[in-house]
Each structure stands twice: as structure tokens, then as C-alpha cells.
């Protein structure tokens, strides 16, 4: 304690026990002597008691002593401490590695000292594991050659060769680990790290070399050279960029067209048959494509969902006007991330996208009622032709699917 602190400390018990505040600030023992606050007396403070580790108090029987163990490592024995000190005091040799006895680090188990019988047993264990590897390999090979690969959809051969291989690999790995653990020397080694950076002279020398080169190249002084070089280097990537041009067509207005034309019949995507008035029951839906679409992959923006409502269920006037006979057609491609929307709830007329759960109220012009989608689904104007088939009155009036910069 410094002198200053001494000055502030109370001189008498009375002084110290004046107010609660003072007592808290300058605690005293019950005897009135100043005492450090917040600190219980440690064994060291008790006069006349020498408590040694492990021998806490003579009257406490061995077994009921708290089995508190701090850390896993044992304290150093004198001999080990000496060995450790010696190991660190040795200047690092060329490769910087010394091997020190395990005891130096408080490792109580020294595999080098094991009983030879134990060592033979360990060897047998490791060898047994390696033998298991061989067994696993044989199981794999026999399974591969003998089992009918089509039996039970290939499940059987998969179990046989997979099981064999698993056995082989796990046994091999376990064998290696056991070998390292039980039979290899565990003497701890110490290696000096050495500096992470070069000596300062070396840094200076290398900087000097670098800048001498810069001077010689004249990039600082020869302006014309520098500028023409920069210009040339700036142009050089141009051919590379240009060569990438033919990776694909320019977007143009392609994202605005879906393949629907005036008069295209609505064709069921599965049966490829045109859909007639009455094919869909009230509350039913169908996924449709324009007639003669070929493959869906070629018209990935075209998938459309045709829904039949009960009369009077459609709440939006525009929706009813764009539909025909209580049937309406909406794009199936989500206006959020482009997933095909597929979950329709008949009672509520909600259409839910399974990817990100955007929900559209199909009775209210596909209004977004939940989820990350920001726009209604575009509606396809439809009509019924003379033969009673549904036909499109044209392409979608706005781009289908997720938004993009040029969408407008």
C-alpha cells in the first residue's frame, strides 16, 4: 500500500465504524483493524497454519475432502520443473526443436514407460483393427460381385459395399489413432517460433531494391511512357469482355413475352388437351400453356393458372371483366422470385407460393395479402371461342415473373 492510501485509511475502529458509507469504504475486521474489502482471508493469512495441497486439514478424513481438481494437469514435480527450465534455457538449435520429457509439462502418463505386456497388447489391438480393414474390403468386393444390383432398387448392394467400406475406413482410422496414442513416443517437443517479420535491415534493403527498380523503369519520371502504358493496359481487357458477348442474346424485350398469342387455346400442361367450358368444376384449378407449346422449358414464363369461381365470388370488377364465365387466368410464375405457385385454397381463394410463402387473394385480382411478393400476379385476358374452348385474347399486358431493372 502506498503512503497516500495509508493516509485515507481510518486510524481507529470508531472512525471506521462511523457511517455505513465509511464502513463500506474502509472495512474493518471485528477487531477494528482495517481490512481489505471483498477479500476473504486465504490460507496464507492464517498464522501458524501451513496448509499443503492435498493435506488440507488433519481432521478431515481423506475421502470426504472436496474432490476439486483444477485443470487436468498435475503440478510440476521439482525434477520436472528443472527439466522444463533446462529445456527453455537451451538456445534454439538450427531446427529449433527440442524434445523434453513428458513430465516437464505435467503430463502424468508417459507411454514410453509402459509395461512391455501392455505394449504387446496395444500392438495386438492395432493389428486387429488393421485386420478388420481387410475384412471390410473383402465384404465390399464380395458384395459388389455377388449381389444383384437391381434387387430392392439397389438398396442391398448399397448396404453391402457401403457397410464394408465404412468398416474398412473406420477400422483403419481407429488403428492409426490407437497406434499414435499407445505406441508412438509422446515426448512433448518445444520449438522456438522465431520472428514473424524480417530484420529491419532486410526490410530496408528490399524496399530500396524495389524503388531502385521503379526509378530505373522511370514510371515516375517518364510521363508519356506511363500514360501510354496505362492506356494500353486499360484497353487490353476489352477483347476479353467482347469475347463474352456471345454467351447469350441481349435481353431486349424477351422478358416481356411469354408465348401467349391472341386466339391461343388454353391447353392443360399434363394432358396437352385444350380446356373447354365445364372441364373445370367450381373451385377447381388447372395449369395451362398456350396451344402447341412443345416443351415447358422453352416457355418458362408461360405457365398460367386457370381458376373457376362460383358465380359472384369474384370481388374485382377488372378481374371478372378479363375472365370468361367465372373463369380467370393468372400467371403461375410468382412475382417475387419466379417459383411456379401451386398451393390453392378453395375456400379462401388464396394462392400460396411454396418457395417463400407469398400469398395472393385470387378473388381480389391476385392482391398480395402476405409474404415478400410486391406485386399482384399478372392476369391473362381470356375468352371462350365458338366451340366452347378457352382462348387467350393476347399476351400478358405486363411482364410476368420477378421484377427487373428495365421492367418499368
Amino acid at each position, binding site marked *: 500500500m502506498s503512503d497516500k492510501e495509508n493516509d485515507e485509511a481510518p486510524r481507529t475502529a470508531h472512525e471506521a465504524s462511523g457511517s455505513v458509507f465509511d464502513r463500506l469504504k474502509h472495512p474493518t475486521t471485528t477487531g477494528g483493524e482495517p481490512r481489505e474489502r471483498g477479500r476473504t482471508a486465504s490460507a496464507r493469512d492464517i498464522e501458524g497454519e501451513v496448509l499443503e495441497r492435498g493435506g488440507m486439514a488433519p481432521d478431515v478424513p481423506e475421502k470426504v475432502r*472436496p474432490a476439486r481438481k483444477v*485443470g487436468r494437469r498435475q503440478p510440476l514435480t521439482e525434477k520436472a520443473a528443472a527439466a522444463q527450465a533446462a529445456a527453455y534455457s537451451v538456445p534454439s538449435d538450427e531446427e529449433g526443436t527440442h524434445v523434453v520429457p513428458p513430465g516437464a509439462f505435467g503430463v502424468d502418463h508417459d507411454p514410453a514407460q509402459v509395461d512391455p505386456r501392455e505394449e504387446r497388447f496395444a500392438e495386438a489391438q492395432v493389428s486387429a483393427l488393421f485386420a478388420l480393414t481387410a475384412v471390410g474390403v473383402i465384404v465390399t468386393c464380395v458384395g459388389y460381385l455377388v449381389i444383384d444390383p437391381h434387387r430392392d432398387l439397389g438398396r442391398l448392394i448399397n448396404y453391402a459395399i457401403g457397410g464394408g467400406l465404412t468398416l474398412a*475406413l473406420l477400422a483403419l482410422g481407429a488403428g492409426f489413432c490407437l497406434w499414435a496414442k499407445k505406441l508412438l513416443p509422446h515426448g512433448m517437443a518445444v520449438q522456438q*517460433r522465431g520472428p514473424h517479420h524480417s530484420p529491419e535491415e532486410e526490410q530496408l534493403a528490399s524496399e530500396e531494391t524495389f524503388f531502385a527498380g521503379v526509378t530505373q523503369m522511370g514510371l515516375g519520371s517518364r510521363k508519356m511512357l506511363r500514360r501510354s502504358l496505362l492506356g494500353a493496359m486499360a484497353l487490353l481487357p476489352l477483347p476479353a469482355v467482347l469475347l463474352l458477348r456471345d454467351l447469350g442474346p441481349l435481353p431486349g424485350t424477351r422478358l416481356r413475352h411469354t408465348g401467349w398469342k391472341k386466339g391461343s387455346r388454353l391447353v392443360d400442361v399434363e394432358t396437352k388437351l385444350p380446356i373447354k367450358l365445364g372441364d373445370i368444376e367450381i373451385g377447381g384449378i388447372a395449369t395451362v400453356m398456350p396451344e402447341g407449346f412443345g416443351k415447358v422449358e422453352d416457355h418458362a414464363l408461360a405457365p398460367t393458372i386457370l381458376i373457376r369461381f362460383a358465380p359472384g365470388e369474384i370481388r374485382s370488377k377488372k378481374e371478372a371483366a378479363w375472365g370468361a364465365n367465372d373463369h380467370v387466368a393468372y400467371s403461375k410464375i410468382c412475382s417475387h422470385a419466379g417459383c411456379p405457385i401451386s398451393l390453392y385454397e378453395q375456400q379462401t381463394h388464396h394462392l400460396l407460393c411454396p418457395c417463400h410463402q407469398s400469398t395472393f387473394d385470387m378473388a381480389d385480382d391476385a392482391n398480395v395479402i402476405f409474404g415478400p411478393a410486391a406485386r399482384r400476379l399478372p392476369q391473362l385476358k381470356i375468352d371462350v371461342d365458338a366451340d366452347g374452348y378457352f382462348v387467350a385474347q393476347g399476351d400478358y399486358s405486363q411482364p410476368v415473373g420477378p421484377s427487373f431493372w428495365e421492367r418499368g
Partner: protein
Amino acid sequence: MSSAAETGAKQTLRYVDDRLGSANFLRRSMNKVFPDHWSFMLGEIALYSFVILLLTGVYLTLFFHASSREVVYNGSYGPLRGVPMTDAYASTLHLSFDVRGGLLVRQIHHWAAVLFVMAIVVHMFRVFFTGAFRKPRTLNWHIGVGLMILAVLEGFAGYSLPDDLLSGTGIRIAYSVMESIPVVGTYLAYFLFGGNYPGQDFIPRLFIIHVLLVPGILLALISAHMMILWHQKHTDFPGPGKTENNVVGTQFYPTFIIKTNGFLFLVFGVCTLLATFAQINPVWLYGPYNPSQVSAGSQPDWYIFFLEGSLRMFPNLESNLWGHTISWNILIPGVILPGILFNLIAVYPTIEAWITRDKAYHNLLQRPRDTPVRTALGATLITFWGILYIGGQNDVLANTFHWSLQATTRTLQVLIFVLPALAFYFTRRVCLGLQHHDEELLHHGIETGIIRRLPSGEYIEVHEPLPAQRSEVLAMQLGHDLPDHAALSNGHGTNGTNGQGIARPVGPLARARASLEGFFFERREAKADSEDDEPKTLTRP
């Protein structure tokens, strides 16, 4: 070793050394010391799963056809016979059902990929929470972040290749995310896919990205990562006899190399075990890709969940200005958020060193409790990521527990702000509490449970002093974040920085730094208030 084999080995070593002069390097390498701690295995798991991925991946390329050409399936999987599909999907079915062991190798590959990303992430946790990223290992942290991002991309590319219904849906979303980028979005998407989604060109292009481009970069970066590790030597936790200037452990040859090889086989064995008995990505159940279909409960691999979650949870913002549309509801959760997240992770070491003015070299690791603010920041980020992860399966959760989907999503939208803040607060409190406990242990020793009465009548509990070695280590651990940079400064004259003589902060940046520094080292002030022990002398290496 028999003498013939010995002579042979000697001759080989001579042969190599005569040409490369490698004897000294070889001897130093064999004697290299590696410290021992279970958490150092995490990086090894990542490395070995990469080896497994290369081995199994090469096998898969022998059978996979990276083509969108339409074929009619005619293999031995009955339910899909006669169905038109792409060659990519058909060859995946062929590999799974008509090549003996093909399914096994495919599943090992997929499980190893899942393990690869997982091991990388957990390894990063270890490096982050122990401060192993600090100088001089900053560059290796940057490389590691790059590896993590590439591993995620590589995984996504991998499960997109079979062109089943699930992977097609993932690609469709990726296309939309690309489209959402302002100005260049549609061009990017068109050039990558060769036109409108899905097109014929994407699968072959993705294939070459997956099997050549990204693995090539991964391989180069992993080599650099390992070489830097080798050169700088591994970090270690403080322990008896361990200092900032030495490495204590086992030598590379023979003990470490045998152990680590065993570990390689164990990792391989675990992947094979999973591949044999735990089905992963059964593409035949999903069916071929069709842009007009999607299955409910579409789920990506685990490392994409956070992106899926951010897409699901973000509010539906879109703006239309001057004839241009920006869909913030995709741009922010799909592009900007992961961009910020990954960049923050990458620059964190620089930010921390700037705040703490720490220019010293660190070879000894810290325990998470020794740096409460860093640990709390890590917990905050993990919690944030965790909510996004859960958000990626809100439909599955709602369905499983019969919750309302809307309520689930709205709750997560609130929790993503609340829980990270709570995580920060509680983690910091727990760290400070643990520190306090350690201080107590260091100063007062261990409680023995023995109560004694002093001559003055006072009862005290007898404390047993800590073993010298243990208290030395503890002091080392607790003292690590003390900001005495004068002592920490590496004596690197040219840097011209040490803790002494820092002028009063001038300018807003410097003031911000000063207050952040106080925040980071809060513990010191807290301690000064609560304990008036004589200042302990910490032994610092």
C-alpha cells in the same frame, strides 16, 4: 526395417536431395511441432472432406452427362420409365440405379459437401472466438473467408446439377436474384444462362464451374492457407511452459502424421457411414425439372438456408422510379445482406485491431471469456444468422407444430432484431462473470469448504492457493486483453506506434475509435471499481 528397404529408402532420399537439396527442409519439416487441442481438428475435418470431395467428384464426372438435351428415361427405376427429362437428370438416375456403387459415391460426395461447409464454419468459430485471426494471421483469415464463400457457392452449384425438380427451383430463384441487380441484372442472367430461364446452356456451364473453375480456386487457396499455416506455425492456448515465442506439442513426424492420417480415414469412414445408411438428396423422388411445377416444402442444403430465410422474411418493398424497377425485396435479402455479412466477417480483424490499437504479434490464443465484446459480437452474428436459418424453414415449422404461417414469419421478423441484441447482452455478461470468477480464483484461491473461526471470533472459509503453474497460466489468460500496448508493441521501429504518448483524439474518427476502445476494454474499468486489491503483477511473455 529390413536392411534392403532401409537402403532403398536411403537411396530415394539421396536421389531427391541430390537434385533438390531438400534434406534440411525435410528434417525441419519432420521436426515441426504441432500443438495439441481438440479444436485444432476442425480445420482438418474441412481439409479431409475436401480430399474426399475431389476423389468422389472425379468418379461422378465419369458417369454424369452435363447436358440439357431431352431424353426419354429407360433405366431400371420403374416410376420414371418413359418420362422425358434432361440428359443430366437421366444420367444421375443411371448413376444411382444402374452403376454398382454409384449411389454410394454420390451420397458420400453429398455428405462430404455438407460436412465440408459445416467444418469450415465451425473452424471459423474456433478461430474467431479464440482470437487466432489476429496479427500475424490476418491474411489467412481473409483466405479462409474466401474459402467459406467459395465452398457455399460450390455446394449450391453441386446440388443444382442433377436438374431435378428441387435443384431447378433453386436455380430459378438464383436467376431471379440475378435479375434483381440494378442496371446489369438482366444482362448478367442472360449471359450466364444463354437467354431466358432455363435455356439449354446453363447446365454445361454450371458443370465446368463446379468441376474445374471453383475447385481449382479452392485448391489454390487451400494450398496457400496450409503453406501460411506451416510457415507461421500453429497458435496454441496458454499452458504450462507455453509462451508467445514457442510451440509446445508433438512433432510432425512420426506422431502427428500418424494421428492425422488416422483422422483422414475416420472422416472418410463417417462420410461413408452416412452415405450408406442416411439417404441424402433422393433426386428420383423429386422427378425431373419442370418450370410449371414445384413441390411444397422445397428446402435447400443447410448452408443456403440463411439466404432462403432472408428472402422469406424480408418485407415486400419494390420501387419504380424514372421507368426503372428495383425489387428491394430480392436485392437486399439476396445480394446486399450476404454481401455485407461476408464483408464484415472478412474485415473484422482489421476493425478490431484498429479499435484496440493492437499492433502486436499474437501466437497464444484467448479464451472467449477473455474478450467479452468480441465474443458477444460473435454471438450476435450467430444469432442473427440462426434466425435467418430458422426463417428458411418457416413453412416446415408452421406445418410441424401447427402454427400459423403468418404468425411464425411475423414473430421471426421481430426476433431477428430482439434476439441478437439479447445475445450480445447475455454473452457479454456471462463472459464478465466468468472473468470475475477467474480473478477470484487467482487472488483468493479455491474454496475448500472448510470454515474456521479466527481468534477474533470471525468465521472465514479457508481458501487453498492455486497451484503455482495454474495461477501462472490463469494470469496469462486474464491479462491478455489488457491494453498495455507499450508492452505488447513488437518493437518494430518503423511502425512508430506504441501505447505511450497517444495524443488526445482529434477528429470524429479518432473520437469514435477512442470510445469504441473504451467499450472493448470495458472490463478494465469495471474491475477498477469493484476491486481494490493491490494491482496484481501479471507475467507477460
